[in-house]
Structures are given as C-alpha cells and as structure tokens.
C-alpha cells in the first residue's frame, strides 16, 4: 500500500468520525427548564458553601435539563475508574493517586442532587472509597 493511500484512509476515517461527532453532539441544551434547573443548582451551590457560577445561562448550556455528561457518567464502573485516575498526578503512563481536596467532590454531589437524585448513592459510594483532605492553601 502506498503512503498516499494510507494518508487518505486515515484522513477519511477521521473525517467520518468528525461528521458523526458533529451530528450527534447536542447543541441546543438551553431552554426554560434548563434555565430553572441551573438557577436551582446555583442556589444549591450557595447553600453548600461552594463558590457558585454567576451566570445560570452558561450553566444551562452545559448541563441542559438532565445533567449532561456528568449524570450520564455516574454509575458506570468505567466512570468510577476514570474518576479515580483523575484524582492522581502524573504523566502519560505513570500516575500516583493523591489525596485531593474535599471540595472537588462536593460540587459533583450537588450536581447529582440537583439533576439526577437517583444517582446520589453512587457518587457517595465513590466519595467514601477515597480519602480527601484540606490540601488547598487559602
């Protein structure tokens, strides 16, 4: 197979992938219900003592009405694995688990409580399985 043919095949596969991604991506997540949920999320963030995003429209555009990828990912084993990997520090192939600040999971819990309350138990299970500390300097 010539080099040119390989480049065309790889380029073609990438183009198909891009088309699929562009078509299936949900662009219009913003509506009245999403706005209401976003305002509720901001209130819940405030109540939890977290620094809340100020603009509900921006929140609504990311979370939509169903919590978007955050709620979709909670509950799967792979997501738990990814979450644990995200609580580590390292490079391409070697990472070490670290004790992260407790705040990093507080927001996740509030999002789950607001958008997908049925999945709060899964988040709590993940939180309980990890150690957290007060490691961010004021």
């Amino acid at each position, binding site marked *: 197979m010539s080099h040119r043919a390989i480049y065309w095949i790889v380029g073609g596969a990438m183009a198909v992938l891009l088309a699929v991604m562009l078509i299936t991506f949900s662009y219009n997540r913003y509506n009245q219900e999403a706005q209401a949920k976003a305002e509720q999320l901001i209130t819940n963030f405030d109540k939890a003592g977290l620094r809340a*995003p100020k603009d509900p429209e921006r929140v609504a555009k990311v979370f939509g009405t169903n919590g978007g990828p955050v709620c979709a990912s909670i509950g799967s084993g792979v997501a*738990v*694995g990814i979450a644990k990997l995200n609580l580590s520090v390292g*490079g*391409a192939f070697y990472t*070490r688990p670290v004790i992260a600040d407790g705040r990093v999971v507080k927001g996740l819990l509030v999002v789950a409580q607001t958008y997908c309350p049925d999945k709060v138990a899964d988040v709590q299970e993940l939180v309980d399985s990890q150690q957290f500390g007060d490691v961010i300097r004021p």
Partner: protein
Amino acid sequence: MRSLRGSPLPGGEVIGGEWDRFSGLADHLLPAWNGIASIVLIVSNFGAYSGMEMNAVHVNELENPSKQFPKAMFFATILVLCILILPPLVISWFIPAEELSLTAGVMQAFDAVFAHFGIQFLTPIVGLAIVSASLAGFMTWLSGPSKSLLLVSKEGGYMPPWFQKTNPNGVQINILAAQGVITTILALLFAFVPAVSDAYWMFMTITTSVYLLMYLWMFRAAMNLRKRQPDHPRGYRSPALNLLCIMGMASSAAAILISFVPPSQFGGGSPAVFILIVGGGILLLGLVIPYLLIRLRKPTWQVTSPSVSEEAS
C-alpha cells in the same frame, strides 16, 4: 489529554471563575507541601516525557540526524510544556474546582469553557483532536519498542525466528501481532474490572520502575559504546555524554527508590505488602525475565552477525 490532572496547579482554586483572581496565581504555583509524598510526585513527572526516547529508533531514517534530531527533541520539549501547562491553566481560569466533574472529565471542562464564549460547536472538534492525539501516542509505543526488540533479537538470537519475521517493508509483523494479543487482553481486563483498585496502582508502579530500570541499562550501554568505539559512525553524537548519562542514571535510580513509598491514597493495605509486591514485580519483570532471555537464547536464532548497533548514543 490527561494533562488536566497532571498539572501541579490546584485546580480552580488558582484563579477561580473570576479574572481578578489571577493575581493570586504566584502563591499557588507550587502544590502544598505534604512531606515525602510531595517528593514522590517527582517520579510522576518522569512519565510526562516518557516516549520521547522511543523516537530514537527512527533516528537513522532522518536525512541529517545530527542536526534534525536535537532540533526535534527541543521542539518536542517545548510542545510538551505548552500542552501540559497552558490548557489546564486556561480551564482552571474559567472553571472553579467545585464545578469540574471528576467523572465527565476533560471534555466537560472544554464544553464549559466554550459555553462561556458561545462557541460550543468546537467541543466535538476538540474531542476529535484528543482522539487523534491518543492514536498518535499509540503509534510511538507500537512501533518504537517492537522495532528495538526486532533489532536486538536479530543480532543476539534472543527470540525464535518466528518472532523475527518481517513483511516486505521490514516491519516486525509477528512481534506486533503478539503485542496486539497481549495488549488486547490487558485492555479487556480494564473493561471487565473497571474500578481502579490498589492492584492497579501497584501494577502501574511496577511498570514504571521496570521502565526506569531499562533507562539505567540504556545510559550504561551508551557510556560503554562511547568508550569502546568512540569513532564508530553513528546517526547522532550527543555532547557531554558521560555527564548526561550519570545524571540520567542518578535520577532514574532515585525515582525507582522513591516509587517504593506507597501512595498516601493507598487504601487499607500495609506498606510492607506494597513494598513486597512492587519489589517482587520489579525483580520478576526487570531482572528474572531479561536473565532468562539471555540464558535461553540460541546462536541458531541469530540472523545478522553481532555488530555495534546503529542506535543513537
């Protein structure tokens, strides 16, 4: 694009969602000091550059290696620094730590930053960029180590002839096939046992230490080659080789020693068990198996006469 967590910056707390918070950056450039566990993070930093040396197997395919190779390495170093530092910094600028989801990961972070500017259509494009970057990363690891394996097994007779079979373009097809089978099994393991456990961290420590052990041999071999055959024409001749090699060996040895310190997140298990398993794994994979390969090699498996490798040194 796993650089988001690779950053030593403590997430959104650095700059939060507000521009004026950027003034607090200087105080947060270094992570909080947590005793020996902080030193251990240095080992992880070795990983950020791992794979750079893999490209050395292709050095003889360059037109002018002595000029192009160092240039390529410096360029790669600058790119790695920019890629590992800038995007996490930008993301942490706009998104406080509390808003970053651990499970949805980096794509959601990009999505939120793009939503801020009303350009969310860029999210799938960044997604594709991340996919192609991962694939390109695979390519380095697929072609590099297996090519070295082919070169040494041909010269030293370390592997049966079946593994040394190449296609008309000189690609080590059977080694690649064997590698593919083993990698697929390991990848499937992650699909069936997805929750990252203590065992996962231990295997990762063993892998890294064995890899660093290889660095020790590599630096030693480079010093030897320079001493024994200083005038042999090579693709690339590095300056101050002995100094570089001694520095490399000292830092690799320090990193191997430090990796024996169990991570502070390590749940429940006793440090002694961690050290035993990691030490045993390093002995088995890094010393016993290479010894067996040398012991069991057959002169009849040798394809080419032993000569000085053309590798860069």
